[in-house]
């Protein structure tokens, strides 16, 4: 039976619609995976000598033991955001004569073969081997240690699923636990009670009595059983396998009425952003990026490289423009045929998107004004960048949008989500960011700061002046690519 499951899995991977279409993306992801694998391996090999050199008076193994809990905590956090149990894939199996327990077991066992579980192995094994070799620790002790640590890592794997079941839809419920962690941290900080010490002494005990490594393994089995029970209980269509239905409320943003004929689309876009996971998170990302200036402005190293400030300016005032604009009109992909057969003039549709983005640029620019604290130059550059964004980058992004062919599912989380990403998204960064930086850098270097800033702003103003003509051209491009877009947006599957 398990063999059949595995063959299903195999087919699911190789026959997925995206394998052929986004091979480039797969290669990119593979590179990232290889990169992380190498980093972990190097760290695994180098950890012992590094620690020995940095803190010669302590034993590396002892340091690692004390940091173990923190490492596991971080790993749990990372997994919470990135790793999911693929529950949906088993939905078609429900009606087949397969014992439910088998399907659940398969799902849980399959999760062990995740990349997340492979990486720590690259860290633990070389370190254990190195330590055994250098410290004359007995092989048995180090094997016991490695087994115990890896057992704990796998415990994190299953703990994550339990946590996700409980908290994924209700992050607020996590609050008491966060408080508990903070309390533990405080106790540790003021040396009242050290939980990391406790874990460390546990690991020391394992080193002395390697058979104690069974304890994490027993914990692992217990967590597995717990997961199994939870899943078995919830393995019905109306429970976990069905999507959540949220209470809806009608809103109509009447105040947008004064925008005239683009008002209906603005209303639609605002609802799109508020009501769907992926675009909604863009707002938070945009606000987070506001802090970006803090990295560059106070840093003396960048004071002589004002071109960097152009990058920061374009990025901060245009972050929403970049994140939202690069997937226009893919945000509307799930109902694009309707948009194309309804009574919607393309130019009006595009103008409304432009209006929304321009509004975001203005708002973000206002939010960046406190950076004037780091000098008037910063403020002036940011203003020029905002004008450049409005006049030049907005039409470029909209034009690039007519080469979007990839569907976007609005309800998927944006973390590590490359759905909808194609060559267009990568290429677009060049004119968007690189060109203004080069223009500024050249003029600033060879003429003066004032000329450089004025040129950037002037380019923006030219774009604004000829907005109507430019938008006509953009609309033409949408018209030309219409059939290919409709067809592309219909292709479901990753």
């Amino acid at each position: 039976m398990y063999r059949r499951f595995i063959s299903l899995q195999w087919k699911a991977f190789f026959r997925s619609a995206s394998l052929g279409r986004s091979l480039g993306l797969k290669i990119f992801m593979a590179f990232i995976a290889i990169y992380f694998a190498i980093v972990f391996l190097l760290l695994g090999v180098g950890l012992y000598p590094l620690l020995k050199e940095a803190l010669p008076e302590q034993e590396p193994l002892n340091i690692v033991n004390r940091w173990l809990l923190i490492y596991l905590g971080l790993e749990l956090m990372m997994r919470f955001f990135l790793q999911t149990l693929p529950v949906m894939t088993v939905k078609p199996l429900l009606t087949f004569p397969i014992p439910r327990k088998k399907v659940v077991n398969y799902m849980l066992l399959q999760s062990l073969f995740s990349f997340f579980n492979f990486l720590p192995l690259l860290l633990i094994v070389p370190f254990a081997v190195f330590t055994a070799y250098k410290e004359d620790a007995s092989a048995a002790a180090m094997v016991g240690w490695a087994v115990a640590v890896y057992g704990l890592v796998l415990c994190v794997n299953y703990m994550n699923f339990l946590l996700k079941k409980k908290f994924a839809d209700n992050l607020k419920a996590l609050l008491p636990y966060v408080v508990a962690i903070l309390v533990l941290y405080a106790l540790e900080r003021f040396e009242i009670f050290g939980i990391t010490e406790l874990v460390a002494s546990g690991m020391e005990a394992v080193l002395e009595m390697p058979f104690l490594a069974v304890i994490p393994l027993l914990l692992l089995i217990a967590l597995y059983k717990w997961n199994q029970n939870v899943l078995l209980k919830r393995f019905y269509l109306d429970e976990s396998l069905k999507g959540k239905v949220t209470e809806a409320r009608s809103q109509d943003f009447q105040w947008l009425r004064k925008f005239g004929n683009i008002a209906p689309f603005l209303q639609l876009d605002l609802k799109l952003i508020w009501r769907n996971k992926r675009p909604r998170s863009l707002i938070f990302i945009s606000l987070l990026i506001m802090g970006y200036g803090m990295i560059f402005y106070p840093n003396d190293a960048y004071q002589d490289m004002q071109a960097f400030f152009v990058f920061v300016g374009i990025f901060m005032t245009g972050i929403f423009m970049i994140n939202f604009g690069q997937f226009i009109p893919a945000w509307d992909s799930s109902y694009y045929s309707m948009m194309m057969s309804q009574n919607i003039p393309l130019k009006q549709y595009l103008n409304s998107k432009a209006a929304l983005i321009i509004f975001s640029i203005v708002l973000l620019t206002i939010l960046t004004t406190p950076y004037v604290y780091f000098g008037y130059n910063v403020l002036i550059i940011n203003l020029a960048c905002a004008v450049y964004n409005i006049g030049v980058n907005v039409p470029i992004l909209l034009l690039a949008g007519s080469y979007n062919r990839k569907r976007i599912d609005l309800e998927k989380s944006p973390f590590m989500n490359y759905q909808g990403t194609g060559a267009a998204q990568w290429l677009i960064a060049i004119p968007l960011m690189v060109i203004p930086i080069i223009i500024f850098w050249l003029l600033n270097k060879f003429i003066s700061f004032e000329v450089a800033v004025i040129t950037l702003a002037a380019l923006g103003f030219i774009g604004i002046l000829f907005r109507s003509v430019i938008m006509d051209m953009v609309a033409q491009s949408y018209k030309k690519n219409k059939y290919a877009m409709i067809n592309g947006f219909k292709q479901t599957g990753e």
Partner: protein
Amino acid sequence: MALNKPVNKMITVTNLSKVYNGTCVLNIEHLEIPRGQSFGLVGNNGAGKTTFFSLLLDLIQPTTGNVFNNEITVSQSEEWKPFTSSFIDESFLIGYLTPEEYFNFVGDLRNRNKADVAAFLQNFEDFFNGEILGRNKYLRDLSKGNQKKAGIVAALIGEPEVVILDEPFANLDPTTQIRLKALIRELSEKSEMTILISSHDLIHVTEVCERIVVLDKGLVVNDIKTSEATLKELEQYFAGGYAKEVKESSQAENI
């Protein structure tokens, strides 16, 4: 009834064909649909029904030929959009809107204000059967049948002259099917609306359409003015075609 209407053409199709990878999926030499006609399209899977409707709406590009909607070439101008509306599949619904918001959005596009839309929706209280309006649900969370109801009604907002509905009866419960048939009959009798419907259900189409065109592998194989005998004729055609195919395949096996 049809005699009372001024006969002028609403939709004209000339030399229309669509080829995918060398396979011709639709080839219609000439077809005219007069204003105000209720037009039914039947055929087996793969006969080209949805392809035909998509071509009418300029959602796919014809390989050859043209579609004229009220003398406007649909692939060249957008002028046909104000008086044409359609519901092909769920991709015509905006999942994150409530049905009310969706109706208002479509109303906006068709120059109807909220009050107009609300008054219009009053006529459909029976049809909705209390399952669409005021339920505080997004369209994406409605059942397939209820989504279809919302889509069909949205297609009727703003008194369009041409309405295109692909498989409107599929997924509907029996009560709604009966109500939808009554609705379509009423619309075609009392207004000048040209209604194009496709269906797998021969009984439904013969009940509501004045004219029925049968497509088979992209070709028009029959063009009937509906009468008492039409249902029998259609049933015989499809049963015969099926029997013939079975015979052929069994012959093929024997060889």
